[in-house]
C-alpha cells in the first residue's frame, strides 16, 4: 500500500497544525474569548492525535470532557467576568519577555533530551478492544485510583458550588 503511510502523515501534519497553531493562538491572542476558541482548536488537534495513536476512546473522552465541558465552563467564566466587547487591553504581563526565554529554553532542552535517548520502541499493535481492557483495568488493578478520582471529582463539585455561590438569603418558595 503505497498510499497508506503518506496519508497518515498528511493527517498528522493537519492535526499538528491544529494543535500547535491553536496553542499559539491561545497564548498570543489579545482577546480572551478568542483564546478559548483557539483552545478548542488545539484540543481538537490533540484528539486527532489520539485517533492516530489508536486510542479512540481517549479521543472521544477528550472531545467530551475538554470541549464539551471544560472549554464551555471557561467561556462561561470569560463571559461572566468581562464586559462585552471591551476594547482589548494588553493581556500580557510585564514578564512576557522572560517567559518567552524560559519557554524557548525549556523547548530546546526537551528537544535535546528527546533526540539523545534511544527509546525502546516496539512495533507491536495494541489489542483490538482497548475499551474492554480499560474497563477491566479500572475495576481491577486500578480500582483505588479510580475511586480516588471519583472522590476528587465530588469534592471539586461541592467545592466549586460553595465557592461560586452568591451569599444571598435563600428564599424558600
Amino acid at each position, binding site marked *: 500500500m503505497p498510499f497508506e503511510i503518506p496519508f497518515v502523515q498528511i493527517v498528522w501534519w493537519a492535526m499538528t497544525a491544529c494543535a500547535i497553531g491553536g496553542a499559539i493562538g491561545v497564548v498570543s491572542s489579545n482577546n480572551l474569548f478568542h483564546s478559548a476558541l483557539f483552545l478548542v482548536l488545539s484540543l481538537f488537534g490533540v484528539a486527532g492525535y489520539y485517533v492516530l495513536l489508536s486510542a479512540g476512546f481517549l479521543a472521544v473522552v477528550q472531545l467530551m470532557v475538554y470541549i464539551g465541558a471544560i472549554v464551555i465552563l471557561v467561556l462561561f467564566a470569560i463571559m461572566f467576568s468581562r464586559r462585552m466587547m471591551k476594547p482589548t487591553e494588553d493581556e500580557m504581563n510585564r514578564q512576557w519577555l522572560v517567559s518567552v526565554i524560559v519557554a524557548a529554553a525549556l523547548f530546546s532542552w526537551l528537544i535535546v533530551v528527546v533526540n539523545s535517548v534511544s527509546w525502546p520502541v516496539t512495533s507491536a499493535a495494541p489489542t483490538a478492544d482497548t475499551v474492554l481492557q480499560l474497563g*477491566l483495568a479500572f475495576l481491577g488493578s486500578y480500582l483505588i485510583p479510580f475511586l480516588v478520582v471519583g472522590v476528587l471529582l465530588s469534592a471539586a463539585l461541592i467545592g466549586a458550588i460553595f465557592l461560586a455561590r452568591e451569599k444571598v438569603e435563600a428564599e424558600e418558595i
Partner: protein
Amino acid sequence: MDWLVDWIASLQIPYLTEPEARFLSHLIFASIIAVAAPGMLIILTWLERKIIGRIQNRIGPNRAGPFGLFQAIADMIKMFTKEDITPANADRVVYNIAPGLAVISSILVFAVIPFVPGFIGADLSVGILYVVAVGGFGTLAILMAGWSSNNKYALLGAFRVVAMLLTYEIPMVMALIIVTMVAGSMSMAQIVEAQSSMWYIFTMPLVFLIFFLAGVAETGRSPFDLIEAESEIIAGFHTEYSGIKFGMFMIGEYVHMLALAFLSAVLFLGGWQIPFIDITQFPGLVSAILGFLSISLKTFLFVFIMMWFRGTLPRFRIDHLQNIGWKFLVPLSLVLLVAVAFVVRLFAPGSSSAVPVVPGALSALGAPGEAVALLAANLLVLAGTVSFVSRMARRSKNRQLRAVAAVEPVPAK
C-alpha cells in the same frame, strides 16, 4: 457499506485500490448525509406547521402546491434572499463561524447511526460517547453566537445554554450508560443487535423517558426552548442573525431534532428491526429497504412527539428546569443506574472468556427473564419516585398555604 467498497475496487481504476475505495465510499456517504439531512428541513418545517396548525384548530399552510407542500421552499427562498446583516460591533469571525458549527455539530451525529443492517457510517466502538461529544459542539456554537453578536439578549441566551447544558448532560449520560450496560457495548450497531428480542423502550421505559427529556432539552426545542424564548429575551442567541445565517441555525435545530429522533429509535426502539420478523434473512436490497422503512417510521414517530410537545406544552422557567434536572432527573437516573446494574449482574451470562464474571444467579432464565426483571426494576423505581414526589409536593404546598395564611389575615366574614 462493504459492497460499495468492493464495487469501486472491482472497477479496476488505476490508483484506486481498496483503501482508497474505502475512503471514497465514506466520502460519498458523508456527502449524501450532509445534503439529505438539511434537505429534510423542507419536509420537517412543513410537517411542523401542519401539525401545529391542526393542534391549534387551524389548517396550516395550504396555498403553495398540493397541501401547501411548497410553502417550505418558498420560505427558504425568502430566507436565503434576505439581507445578511452583521452588527457593527460584532466579533466578525466568530459571528460568521457560529452558524456553520451549529449545522456541522448536528450532522456529525449521523456518522454513527445504523440506518439498515450492515450500513453505518463508522461503527465506532465508542459510538454512544461520540454522540455526547459532538453534542458539545452545538452548545459551543450557541455560546459563540451569543457572545459575538454584541447584544445583551443574545448573551443571556448564551448564559442560559450553559445552565441548560449542566442540567441535561448528566441525566442524559446516565441514561446512555444504562443502555450501554444492558447492551454490553457502546457500538450503535451492536446496541441494535442486542435489541433483537426486546426493544429497550419496553424493558426500560423510565430510562427512555429520562433520555428523551434530556434530548429535547439538548435540541433546545419547546418546552425547553429557553435559549430563544421569544417572550423573554427576543430571540435569544440568534437575535442578531438574519438571512442565510439565521437559516443555518434553523437547519441546525431541525437536523438536531431529526438526529435525536434517530438516536431514540436506535437506542430504544430497536433501530431497523421489525417485530417478529428477522429482516437480515432477506436478500440485501429487500432487508435494506425494509430496515430503512422501519427506522424512518420510528424516527417520524419521535419527530411527531416533539412537535406535539411544542404544540401543547408551555415553556419551562429556567429555575424550574434546573430543579427538574438536578433534584429529579439526576437522583432518579442514579437510582436507576444502580437498579439496572443489579439486574444485569443477576443475569450476567458469564461465559465470555475475556470477562471473568461470576455467572449470574438467575442466568438460567435467559433473555425473557432479564427483560421482565428490567421492567420490574423500572416500574419499582417509578413507583418509588411517584410516591416520593407526591409526598414532597404535598408538603411544599402545605408550607406555602401556611406561609400565605401567616401573611394575609383571614378576611372578616
